[in-house]
């Protein structure tokens, strides 16, 4: 069954090609079902591969499938070869599973769009790229997927290319990701120089054979360079700026980017390279710190945003920060666990918000919503489940994974990581319930024009919502403490670096067996406090938030403007580059200096020529005169010259 792995990639590729070449001539239904079918089949095969892998003994769960030779030059070899192991199987299941639901939802959501076939062509390509990223068995092939998801995000964010904001956002996403890719590419080169190979198996086995000591400079450089790539793809400080703008694309695309594909790439990559990362304590500190700071930073911005999708975008950045925190403290399994649960509830939240926007004929501002609960009940219920899951209320998915991360941050990391992470959790619960209350509860602020068209979404949109709500509910049980199936499954890849030893240490009594349970209680309490505050401010005393905003005007403005980071980047990087390129490099160096001297030489030659021309008068008497002068000169030189 493992041999089928290539099919997982093939189906979405076929979908892309058919819809890309012939989609215009096909019926809308055909286009949509073709795209969905491709991902659906891909999911089925992924599941078969998963079963196939389960049949192997845990230590042998690694299967490689060589397709063809790709780039080979001298000792530099990168094959087109796939790798199936527990980590990649978890990823492909999430990608195709959630991806399928998003495709299904898109059939309804995009029904009226002119670029229907173009949309599904890109969507399939997106899933294909992400699958390639997680299935490749070497760094360079992974890099194709890595850049290709960047391309797909470019195409889909800029899907409505006639809107300037959309095409700007698309370009920004690509370029910012390129900055990250710059680091990733250098990382690959350094890996090749160090290990003389870019195959995962060879690199990681070289590491595990102890050829490198802990803290080695080269490994630190490699891991840092790769991490630059991860900050681009997974939207961490300082390269997160593209993600909030990415909501310019159709809402299902946001769901795809934020949940199943793209942003999870960085977390996956670090988990994949856990052997390397563990060798560099310095990089681990950087990863954990960036992660926890991003988690807090993005959550604080999320507090005051008024665009339903923008709040969700910042929550994604914040949640990704948690995953990096987990990786940074060495709890890779916890990171992947949160990746998975986050994929469920974030896809749910985005699709549900899409359903809200759909119901309100395109309105995204939560100040113009409110009281929608009775009008769109299915959307409300599913959105509620997603919100509860992300806020971290047991037994919903987000609770287990976030709690896991916070526990690991405390046990393996330090108190600062935990407290910052816990504070961010408080903010998360607050802003998510603020979003929920402002959208669905309270008085209705929808203008009557939109009110007339207010309707619940069709079945093919609500069905995926219900499915995802179910996953958001049960997703956490895969990694429930005590019987952690996910952890056991991932152990061969993420090894003893998972949290088994912590649990062991904990239950052996170093910290007392009560610690995990105490932590659960604290986590739940934190979430409840956040919800309570949101309830107080937005349900009980609706005027309170305005008063607070006026009281702390500066902070409010700073948060509302997202700390002015975009403006700062513009002022530091973008504008000076444009200015210098135009005013100095082009207009002065190129035109004046280089071309000026070229034309100057030509002018000089011309001048000399026109001066010398006067010698050629055509009069014999002048030439005779020159001859006489010449003769005299020669005689003078001959006589007096010596």
């Amino acid at each position, binding site marked *: 069954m493992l041999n089928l792995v290539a099919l997982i990639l093939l189906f979405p590729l076929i979908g892309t090609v058919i819809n890309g070449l012939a989609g215009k001539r096909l019926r809308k239904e055909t286009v949509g079902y073709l795209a969905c079918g491709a991902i659906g089949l891909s999911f089925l095969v992924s599941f078969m591969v998963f079963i196939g892998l389960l049949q192997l003994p845990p230590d042998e769960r690694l299967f490689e499938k060589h397709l063809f030779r*790709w780039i*080979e*030059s001298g000792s530099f070899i990168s094959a087109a070869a796939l790798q199936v192991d527990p980590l990649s199987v978890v990823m492909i299941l999430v990608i195709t599973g959630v991806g399928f639901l998003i495709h299904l939802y898109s059939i309804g959501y995009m029904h009226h769009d002119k670029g229907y076939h173009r949309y599904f062509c890109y969507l399939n390509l997106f899933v294909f790229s992400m699958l390639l990223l997680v299935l490749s068995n070497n760094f360079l092939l992974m890099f194709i997927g890595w*850049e290709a998801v960047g*391309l797909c995000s470019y195409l889909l964010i800029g899907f409505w290319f006639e809107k300037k904001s959309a095409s700007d956002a698309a370009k920004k996403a690509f*370029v910012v990701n390129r900055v990250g890719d710059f680091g990733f590419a250098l990382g690959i080169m350094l890996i090749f120089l160090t290990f003389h190979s870019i195959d995962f198996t060879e690199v990681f086995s070289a590491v595990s054979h102890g050829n490198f000591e802990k803290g080695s400079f080269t490994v630190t450089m490699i891991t840092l360079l790769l991490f630059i790539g991860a900050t681009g793809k997974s939207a961490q400080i300082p390269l997160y700026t593209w993600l909030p703008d990415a909501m310019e694309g159709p809402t299902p695309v946001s769901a795809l980017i934020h949940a199943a594909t793209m942003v999870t790439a960085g977390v996956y990559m670090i988990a994949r390279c856990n052997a390397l990362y563990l060798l560099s304590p310095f990089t681990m500190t950087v990863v954990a710190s960036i992660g926890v700071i991003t988690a807090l930073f993005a959550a604080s911005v999320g507090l005051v945003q008024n665009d339903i999708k923008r709040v969700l975008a910042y929550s994604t950045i914040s949640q990704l920060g948690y995953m990096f925190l987990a990786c940074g403290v060495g709890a890779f399994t916890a990171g992947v666990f949160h990746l998975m649960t986050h994929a469920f509830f974030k896809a749910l939240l985005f699709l549900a918000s899409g359903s809200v926007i759909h119901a309100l004929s395109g309105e995204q501002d939560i100040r113009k919503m409110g009281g929608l609960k009775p009008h769109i009940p299915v959307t409300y219920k599913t959105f509620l489940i997603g919100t509860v899951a992300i806020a971290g209320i047991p037994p919903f998915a987000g609770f287990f994974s976030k709690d896991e991360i916070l526990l690991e941050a405390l046990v393996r990391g330090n108190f600062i990581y935990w407290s910052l992470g816990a504070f961010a959790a408080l903010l998360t619960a607050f802003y998510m319930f603020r979003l929920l209350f402002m959208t669905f509860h309270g008085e209705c602020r929808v203008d009557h024009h939109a009110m007339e068209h207010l309707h619940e979404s069709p079945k093919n949109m609500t069905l995926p919502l219900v499915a995802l709500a179910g996953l958001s509910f049960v997703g956490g049980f895969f990694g429930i403490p005590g019987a952690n199936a996910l952890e056991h499954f991932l152990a061969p890849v993420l090894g003893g670096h998972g949290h088994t030893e912590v649990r062991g240490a904990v239950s052996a009594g170093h910290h007392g067996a009560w610690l995990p349970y105490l932590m659960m209680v604290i986590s739940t309490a934190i979430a409840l406090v956040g919800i309570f505050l949101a309830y107080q401010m937005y349900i009980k005393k609706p005027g309170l938030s305005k008063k607070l905003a006026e009281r702390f005007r500066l902070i409010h403005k700073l948060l509302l403007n997202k700390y002015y980071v975009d403006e700062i980047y513009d002022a530091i990087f973008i504008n000076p580059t444009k200015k210098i390129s135009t005013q100095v*490099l*082009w207009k002065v160096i190129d035109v004046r200096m280089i071309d000026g001297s070229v034309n100057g030489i030509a002018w000089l030659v011309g001048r000399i020529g026109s001066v010398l021309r006067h010698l050629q008068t055509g009069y014999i008497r002048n030439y005779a005169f020159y001859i006489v002068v010449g003769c005299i000169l020669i005689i003078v030189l001959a006589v007096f010259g010596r």
Partner: protein
Amino acid sequence: MPMLSLVTFFPVIGVFFILFMDSRRKELVRVTTLLVSIVVFVLSLPLYFNFNAHAYEMQFVEKLPWIPSFGINYHVGVDGISLFLILLTTFLMPISILASWHITKHVKEYMIAMLVLETGMVGVFISLDLFLFYVFWELMLIPMYLLIGIWGGPRRIYAAIKFFLYTMTGSVFMLLAIIALYFLNYRATGNYTFNLLEFYRLELSFAVQFWLFIAFALAFAIKVPMFPFHTWLPDAHVEAPTAGSVILAGVLLKMGTYGFVRFCLPLFPEASHAFIPVISWMAIVGIIYGALVSMVQDDLKKLVAYSSVSHLGFIMLGIFAFNIQGIEGGITQMINHGLSTGALFLVVGMLYERRHTRMIADFGGLTRQMPVFATFFMIVTLSSIGLPGLNGFVGEFLILVGTFKSRILYASIATSGIILAAVYMLWMFQRVMFHEITHEENKKLTDVSKREFAILLPLIIVIFWIGIYPSSFLRKMDASVNHLLRQTGEGVNSVSRLQKQNKQTMPQIDIVSETKTEWE
């Protein structure tokens, strides 16, 4: 069968026929030229299929005495380095001619110039006799000069003369160096010859290598063009007709990089090594500078022209990495640049034919009107950016890996060029293809015609082919590039020997240590 001569001189046979045609029958002239160029391409295909990938020696060699009293031979051959440049030339030629259909002024003369140009270009890549090489080198200059000067834009005379003088300046020094090699070889071996393969065996002193390298390198650096010898390029491109730009960017610029690989490196290995920092820095400055200046252009052709400076910088960097990845990457990138930039000029040409402007500001929102065109344009743009899976990535990444192996610093700076490439290309694409249509004229634009489709499709196919399965290209280069490295590798050893000697002699002239011992 003299395959190479057939490929090289078939266009001239075509010229012979066209000469006797009535110049008023434009369609006939066009179709004939197209057919001739297609036949040439078909004739060049056996070079690929019959090429022995395991041999580094020259293949399909032909050698006939030409001017025996001076030791000048008609001596041609192909190896894994020149093979693909020949194929690139014969591949781009039918495409360029198809893209010249709109030319109505002096069609006959135009087509003759194109065919003569093809002979000159192929000749340059196959010559193994330096005299013959120089003849072809100058031969191709003339039709290009005419193409720009007669069929060019408003400032065509300025651009044509600039192009000609720039190139001539370099060529003169190269001619001197060729003559010098001729006599040096005579002094060493006692026979007069221009045979390149004989010259390879010469052992030249470092000083001689140094000056001859400079003479050759100047000619090639202008042709590449390397910063700061690039200012002829934007003018030439802007004024040249579309096909002229395609050939100029696609093939003529490769003469420079090819020259470095074929002549400078193996003839003057030690000097080449000594020049690594100079050339590499010029290349790096070119990469960044070309990208930055490209970014702020408002003329599409100028933008593409400056991007060429950036791309060619990558190629030079790879060649001077002196390892297999760098040089194979460099050669691959020569092909890639020919395809992607050629395609970009074709795309720009199609816009120009419709709107008679090349200013970015005059466009915007074209995707709605021209969806098929938009797809082609997008693929070409991405190929130029070096997106993995398309051709540009293979060359660029190998170059960077090769450079990284030899000098980490150079590679790290150069890699930032991939960010800038995304910036200037995507920004351009956005302003031309996205947004609402703001100019009324653009609402009437038509999508690609069948002819334009036929022009772009082959390029797109090869762009994907190289990106997905580059082995069919790389494997044919291995033997030749390895041989080249052996040729230059001897140079490496002697340089390191020199450095070692220097180090050994250092302590004896170390004044500080001597004074120290006195104080003690």
